[in-house]
């Protein structure tokens, strides 16, 4: 559980960690043992506390075995029990991970790749929204691109020049591209080139590109992860840089993201402990 890994970091900052679910004490005991969880897991068997907080997922049929679950989320509480921050998953949004909360709450930096790449006209820094991940988790891959003064690159949609592109593909992890969403391209500036009478979409100064990556599960995850639990994602950033007088040859710069993958727990609690349908 990612939270177990991070609970020490929260404790260093004076915050204890506890988690609540609708599971029975027996299920939680088994879960804590299998996953080596040392912080308190609280059993809200009848979902009374979940209701008192007003976070019962009402969209689930009452006859479902899953009825009683909360909208998953995290509160950061002060000494007095007042909420200082909260982090809830929105459907389709990236899963909020403990490292996200550390980053937002305490300004801990997102993990940067060990190698920032420098091209002739710009430098690129890779980072990700979480440094630890489990199968099925979504996280953001971020490229921060700093261009040299006077340099511009071309935005997607440009005619006659090579637009910037960012491809994530095989790499060491050999993952199909469906695990990566399209890049969210920022709005380009329209630059009028007087000399040739053209108006073209460009990016200048700095550029921050974000795309989402879904950590694969099961077989693909095992194939993509090294024995030490490291997953390396590789790709390329392509661009054509120009300044006021000159356009340079298109360049291709390798980019790389390293993640630590936590062992995915595929083991369920023993049959006898499982919640019965309609219960």
């Amino acid at each position, binding site marked *: 559980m990612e939270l177990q890994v991070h609970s020490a970091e*929260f404790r260093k900052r*004076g*915050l*204890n*960690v*506890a*988690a*609540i*679910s609708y*599971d029975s*004490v027996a*299920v*939680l005991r088994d*879960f*804590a043992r299998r996953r080596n*969880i040392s912080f*308190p*897991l*609280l*059993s*809200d068997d009848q979902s009374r*506390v*979940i209701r*008192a*907080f*007003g*976070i019962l*997922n009402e969209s689930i049929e009452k006859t479902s075995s*899953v009825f009683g*679950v*909360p*909208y*998953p*989320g*995290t*509160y*950061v*509480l*002060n*000494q007095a*029990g*007042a*909420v*200082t*921050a*909260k982090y*809830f*998953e*929105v*459907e389709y*949004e*990236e899963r909020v991970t403990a490292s*996200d909360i550390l980053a937002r709450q305490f300004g801990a930096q997102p993990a940067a790749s060990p190698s920032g790449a420098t091209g002739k006209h710009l430098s690129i820094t890779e980072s990700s*929204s979480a440094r630890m991940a489990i199968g099925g988790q979504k996280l*953001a891959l971020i490229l921060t691109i700093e261009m040299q003064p006077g340099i511009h690159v071309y935005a997607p949609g440009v005619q006659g020049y090579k637009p910037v592109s960012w491809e994530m593909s095989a790499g060491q992890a050999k993952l199909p591209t469906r695990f990566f969403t399209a890049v969210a391209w920022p709005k380009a500036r329209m630059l009028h080139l007087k000399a040739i009478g053209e108006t073209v979409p460009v990016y200048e100064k700095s550029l921050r590109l*974000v795309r989402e990556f879904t950590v694969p599960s099961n077989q693909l995850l095992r194939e993509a992860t090294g024995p030490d639990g490291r997953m390396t994602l590789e790709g390329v950033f392509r661009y054509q840089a120009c300044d006021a007088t000159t356009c340079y040859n298109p360049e291709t710069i390798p980019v790389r993201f390293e993640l630590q993958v936590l062992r995915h727990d595929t083991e*369920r*609690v023993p049959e006898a*402990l499982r*919640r019965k349908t309609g219960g």
Partner: protein
Amino acid sequence: MLLAGMTLLAASIATGPEPGSRIPAFSLPDQTGQTRDFASLKGPKGLVLVFFRSADW
């Protein structure tokens, strides 16, 4: 934090007490069977309280 537009979906889920307000009092058994409330759980600066779906599936 990430892509613009995702926050539009936020209205469809309930997220409970807002920043600044107190959480409701609670008292629940932990995995060892011991009853815990906020006072027994909190650290010197407070508590990170996580609601998760289930340990069972």
